[in-house]
């Protein structure tokens, strides 16, 4: 016997166990229908849970992107102040964040796929359950003990397999989501721990930074070159702006000094 006929037997034995519990076939119908409604609820909850996880990851990605942009502009500022060491540190951290963003994007895609699968499963089950309800009412309306057993057995075993299938889909989605939830928790901790604070602040982990640096040296060098190239034509303008700012400050000082002079 092949693998997949064995698998259908496993499903079948589950269905038969449910059938054996009931004396009156009509009770079996109601019991099965009850189970179907419960499962339908469960699938819908499953869809909602997966959607919640997906949204959480979307928020995390948005926050990490913000941090990444911040580090980028910090690096630009540091470089403008001729602090290449700080710029390098900022870009190194940014490269670590970019890696995390890309990991999260993968998880996001996987959750989205689970969500789609479960949504389809819910729709399929909904249609089956509605059809079952109609069948159930028909059997009950025309109930004769002699034929009922056959009809009931047919309908209930037929849908039991469906329940097993959808139940399995929900379980898979739950497992997958729980796994991703744990990882999302780690990212939340990172975001809350202040590890992403201003690069000019203190308390950085040198080893981690060094490891990240080794992993991302190429990216950082490239980014530095690009920034330098952008910076070169604008250098005189920036200098002028700083000088202009100083000049204005001096003027204001003089104005207020002369203002005081007038009052006296």
């Amino acid at each position, binding site marked *: 016997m092949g693998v997949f006929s064995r698998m259908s037997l*496993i499903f079948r034995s589950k269905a038969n166990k449910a059938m054996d519990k009931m004396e009156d076939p009509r009770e079996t119908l109601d019991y099965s229908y009850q189970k179907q409604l419960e499962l339908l609820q469960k699938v819908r909850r499953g869809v909602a849970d997966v959607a919640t996880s997906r949204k959480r990851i979307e928020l995390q990605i948005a926050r990490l992107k913000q941090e990444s942009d911040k580090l980028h502009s910090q690096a630009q500022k540091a470089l403008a102040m001729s602090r290449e060491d700080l710029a390098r540190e900022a870009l190194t951290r940014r490269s670590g964040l970019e890696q995390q963003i890309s990991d999260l994007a993968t998880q996001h895609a996987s959750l989205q796929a689970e969500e789609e699968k479960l949504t389809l499963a819910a729709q399929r089950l909904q249609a089956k359950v509605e059809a079952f309800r109609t069948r159930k009412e028909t059997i009950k309306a025309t109930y004769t003990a002699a034929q009922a057993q056959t009809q009931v057995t047919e309908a209930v*075993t037929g849908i039991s397999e469906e329940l097993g299938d959808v139940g399995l889909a929900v*379980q898979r989605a739950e497992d997958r989501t729980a796994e991703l939830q744990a990882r999302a928790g780690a990212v939340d901790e990172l975001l809350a721990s202040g590890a992403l604070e201003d690069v000019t602040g203190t308390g950085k982990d040198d080893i981690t930074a060094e490891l990240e640096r080794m992993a991302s040296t190429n990216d950082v060098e490239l980014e530095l070159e690009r920034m330098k190239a952008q910076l070169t034509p604008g250098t005189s303008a920036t200098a002028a702006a700083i000088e202009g700012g100083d000049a204005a400050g001096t003027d204001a000082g003089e104005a207020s000094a002369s203002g005081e002079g007038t009052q006296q």
Partner: protein
Amino acid sequence: MIIRILGEGQYQIDAEKLADLNDLDRAVEHAISVGDVEEFRAALTRLLTEVHDYGTPVADDVFTESDLVLPPADATLEDVKAMLSDEGLLPG
């Protein structure tokens, strides 16, 4: 005959296709027994494609058991092993 693809629903397929399907079933079984992931993936994909190509979806108001139950396309070799060995995997 009726074939279920887990996560998709049931398909009605001509009995004359059974020989083909049996060959593919054996290929999957072999892959599982020797733990060959690539062979497993290839055989499962062919099996599912065959059912998609030659099967017709079973209507919602038809309640019938399947002759074969196939795992979803993204199932791993371990998933299928677990489905076959551990009844607890299937929710009652």
